[in-house]
């Protein structure tokens, strides 16, 4: 937190040359932050940084094309910016990236399960490695590790990969993500896996928060799920149709998903959507040795063409 004032100053210094800077401010309770769009110097006073700043603000970038934007990013969020730049969906010269090294963000879902209810959060305190939540006069402390988003436990990019301004000390990321969660899931029989998804998708309300929160889901108003002409998908809300949409979403993100987890975080029905995206990324990693948004100068494999892929034996059948 000691870097908050420095970040505010950096933003104030650059704001005159920008249309706006996106960061976070306190939300409706101390555990819930909310995106902050800073246009005037006064707006910067409301800025916060900390483990409650969960949103991947890069989601907003494609909707602001053509404007000069400043954006505050954590390491994982910077992967999204790298991917968006590689796909030429945003312009680097329109962007000022304020990077903040991160030691993990909280999962409101996990804290909710431990607390029983998050309807009455009165106060939250963060230390370097713990979070204390006060609710209904009771205080509960948790190790940050225990209540952090799953993605934080496997994050190698605590320091943003790309930035114009870095506030705070770079943090090394020394974890290896071997897709163990996907591998464990794959050990289950096929029928069990299918049942898992049918059960989870049964509570989908087709609100499309997963789609709109996804920074790489850029078809937006022209999404296959709702297009009327052609009428690609039925509006029937059978569980099979809802799963079909998620499979389409997953396939569209193969090798593009930077695993920020906004799909899963945004789902009001707590459907574990990130596992689907990670399954596809695991395959892309195995085939192309590539993880989306991690190599600034690379071309994503599904945006390129090689006569012979190194890991696909195309003529050896």
């Amino acid at each position, binding site marked *: 937190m000691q870097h908050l004032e420095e970040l505010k100053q950096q933003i104030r210094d650059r704001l005159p040359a920008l249309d*706006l800077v996106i960061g976070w401010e306190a*939300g*409706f*309770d101390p555990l*819930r*932050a*909310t*995106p*902050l*769009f800073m*246009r005037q110097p006064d707006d910067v006073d409301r800025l916060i940084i900390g483990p409650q700043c969960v*949103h991947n603000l890069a*989601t*907003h970038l494609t*909707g602001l094309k053509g404007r000069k934007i400043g954006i505050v990013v954590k390491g994982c969020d910077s992967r999204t910016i790298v991917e968006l730049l590689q796909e030429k969906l945003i312009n680097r010269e329109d962007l000022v990236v304020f990077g903040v090294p991160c030691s993990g963000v909280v999962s409101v*879902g996990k804290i*909710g*399960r431990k607390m*029983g*209810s998050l*309807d*009455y*959060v009165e106060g939250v305190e963060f230390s370097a490695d713990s979070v204390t939540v006060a609710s*209904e006069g009771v205080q509960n402390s948790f190790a940050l590790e225990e209540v952090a988003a799953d993605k934080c436990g496997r994050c190698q990019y605590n320091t943003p990969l790309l930035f114009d301004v870095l506030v705070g000390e770079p943090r090394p990321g020394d974890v290896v993500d071997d897709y163990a969660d996907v591998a464990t899931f794959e050990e289950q029989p096929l029928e069990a896996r299918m049942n898992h998804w049918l059960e*989870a998708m049964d*509570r989908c*309300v*087709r*609100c*499309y*928060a997963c*789609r*709109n*929160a996804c920074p790489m889901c850029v078809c*937006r*108003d022209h999404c296959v799920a*709702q297009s*009327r002409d052609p*009428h690609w998908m*039925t*509006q*029937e*809300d059978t569980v099979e149709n809802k799963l079909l949409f998620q499979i389409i979403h997953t396939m569209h993100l193969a090798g593009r998903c930077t695993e920020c987890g*906004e799909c899963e*975080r*945004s789902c*009001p*029905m*707590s*459907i*574990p959507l990130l596992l689907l995206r990670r399954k596809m990324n695991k395959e892309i990693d195995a085939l192309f040795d590539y993880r989306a948004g991690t190599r600034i100068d690379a071309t994503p494999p599904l945006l390129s063409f090689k006569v012979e892929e190194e890991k696909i034996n195309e003529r050896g059948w």
Partner: protein
Amino acid sequence: MAAKFIAHTELDAWLGRISERYRALVPRREGNAVVFRPFDPAMPVELKARPTESPKAAVFPRCEALLAYKYEKDPEEPGRVEVEVAERRDGVPTVVIGGRPCDAAAFKTFDRVYDSDRVRDLNYLNRREMTVLVSLVCSKPATTCFCHWMGGGPASTAGSDVLMTPVADGHVFETLTARGDEVIGTELPDASDAQMTEARKVQAAAEAAMGEPVDVGAAREKLLALFDDAGFWEAESAKCISCGVCTYLCPTCYCFNITDEKFGHEGVRLRTWDYCMSHLFTMEASGHNPRPTKAHRLKNRVGHKFSYYPSLHGGNIACCGCGRCIRSCPASVDIRAIVLNAIAAPAPRPKG
């Protein structure tokens, strides 16, 4: 009207008996979400946590077939095709147990639209007449609750057929309508005087916990005055991601889409939930869209609830203050803040 008592230990058995006569929808925890499902003795009922979704699907399903159709060629005259249309109207007697007083009040918002002098939506009314609401008093308001701004309250009886109040060992069930009496029946023991006293205390404490309501009556005129203030709406909608969480979880949102889903020569006409946050919501056949940006769309959502609907429906606001749109919004957009900002905004300069 009666007041009965059901001990915690007896609740499942009672729900089992209700399930024999009705589709009994109860809140159940799935993952971190609490959703309404038909009672299943093997699955615990979740009465403590506030339901993630509203029980509106009981009367207004997410998807329903309004009619089925079939094209048939005339064998005598193959160039001539006839269409056979069969209207569909279904529904089963339903009891919703564990919705909140705000949820029950919200059904009134639907009634004014679907049961008016001009329009009677028979599919809706058919289900509405078959549905009984047993509402659970909220013993403590959440940080996102503002039902009292909307004229409701955590122990309000408006719209409910039965009010259930949590007391130490169980729940007191007070019937409010003949339909409520029919569901509760006479088999249960009457609530004792002590239980009634306790229930009244719980209700009074819940009401008191809400604090002073905020008067948002000025929103109606102010939102109209701000209609052309694009700057205001762009700022208010900046963080919105234009998804449908707020509308789909909202107990008072009632918009729908109609699509014909044809497979070969047969098809169904589906009515599904629609939402004003969607680009397609007002897309016209010409290709023109009067609400091209999320700012236009969010303006409609807030304007509809707090200005246009009250103008059309006797001053009633189309929001019950349940706070689901705030709590489940991926970006924590707070409709209370938007309404208050609108009221506080300087009056736009007159044009010209």
